[in-house]
């Protein structure tokens, strides 16, 4: 296996080899999204209903719900995330191998929902970058399936080959420099724009 130099494809023209390889890798990834069902509260029951016979998630290749983050690539945060659970949720997100995506199922994980109380995280995107937000309390299973379809379309547009053969990244401190808080509580608009993450309190560290 000679040393395949990653093709220096610029953002616009992908070059024939890169775009075809992108399409192949993306096709493989989007049709086998293994969900990590973080069923916290009522959305967890709708999540189970979605894996059940009527709204069968197997049609999208995503029914292999694993409970260990090592074998999952899609974290579905289903329910109300509290500050006590936030540490466990962030640890599970970190322990998932790359590439990984996050769906914030329900209004509680998207924005704190009906709980503006002392114990509820005001939106999971304060802890980790979220790819698809699903409104509803709980959202109907077909709404979450629609979110998975949107995620698959988002995966189709990614360009993985550019960084596939790259050297392993040793970012022990934090992956890609984001973390801390992506969005201040009750700020409404998320400062998280896909691509550049703004680490809220990066500056304070020693």
């Amino acid at each position, binding site marked *: 296996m000679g040393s395949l130099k990653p093709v220096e494809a610029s953002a616009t023209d992908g070059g024939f080899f890169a775009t075809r390889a992108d399409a192949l890798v993306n096709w493989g990834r989007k049709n086998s999204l293994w969900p990590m069902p973080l069923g916290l509260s009522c959305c967890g029951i709708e999540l189970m209903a979605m894996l059940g016979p009527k709204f069968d998630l197997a049609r999208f290749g995503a029914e292999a719900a694993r409970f260990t983050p090592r074998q999952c690539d899609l974290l579905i945060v289903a329910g109300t995330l509290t*500050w*006590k659970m*936030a*540490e466990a949720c*962030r640890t599970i997100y970190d322990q998932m191998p790359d590439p990984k995506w996050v769906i914030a199922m329900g209004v509680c994980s998207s924005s704190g929902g009906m709980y*503006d*109380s*002392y*114990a*509820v*995280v005001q939106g999971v995107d*304060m802890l980790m970058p979220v790819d698809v937000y699903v409104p509803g309390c709980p959202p109907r299973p077909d709404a979450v399936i629609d979110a998975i379809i949107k995620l698959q379309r988002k995966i189709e547009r990614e360009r993985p080959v550019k960084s596939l053969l790259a050297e392993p990244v*040793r970012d*022990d*401190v*934090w992956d890609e420099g984001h*973390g*801390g*808080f992506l969005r201040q*509580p009750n700020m409404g608009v998320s400062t998280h724009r896909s691509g550049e993450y703004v680490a809220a*309190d990066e500056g304070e*560290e*020693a």
Partner: protein
Amino acid sequence: MSGLGRLEGAFGGVEHVEVAAADGMPCVEVERDDLIALMTLLRDELGFEACTIVTAVDHFPREPRFQVVHQLLSLRHNDRVRVHCRVSEDDARVPSVTGLWPGAAYFEREAYDMFGLRFDGHADLKRLLMPEGYGHHPLRKDFPHQGIEPDRLYKEWDRARRHAAGSQG
């Protein structure tokens, strides 16, 4: 308001004050020192085998501030009784009933967690619902609904992790 019914004269000298309750349940208010005596009497003589509720109510502007509520259920006679006990904030200590009903342990831990009431004689009194290092008692009336810096513990944990990771890198 139906009175104490079957419990009318049965309190054996524990001085108590009858309290009117909207749901017609016999309701008694007792001093903190007689609480255990009354509870033992209720359980042994009057057959209240189960303890349904141990909680507190914060009447903030009015003193004494906390009102500890015990509610018992008698399966044999199929009736209930509620016992109140007023406690002020600076000396928020109440004797624990886990000796009589082991099932009341978590209720008392929750009352400690939410109101800051210490239960003497409780085996393992620590927070039940809030994380261990949490500094406040949320259900007190003077505690804001959105909480005081709710993400402090997460930030500390987050910073400690990054520090450990950073020093390793």
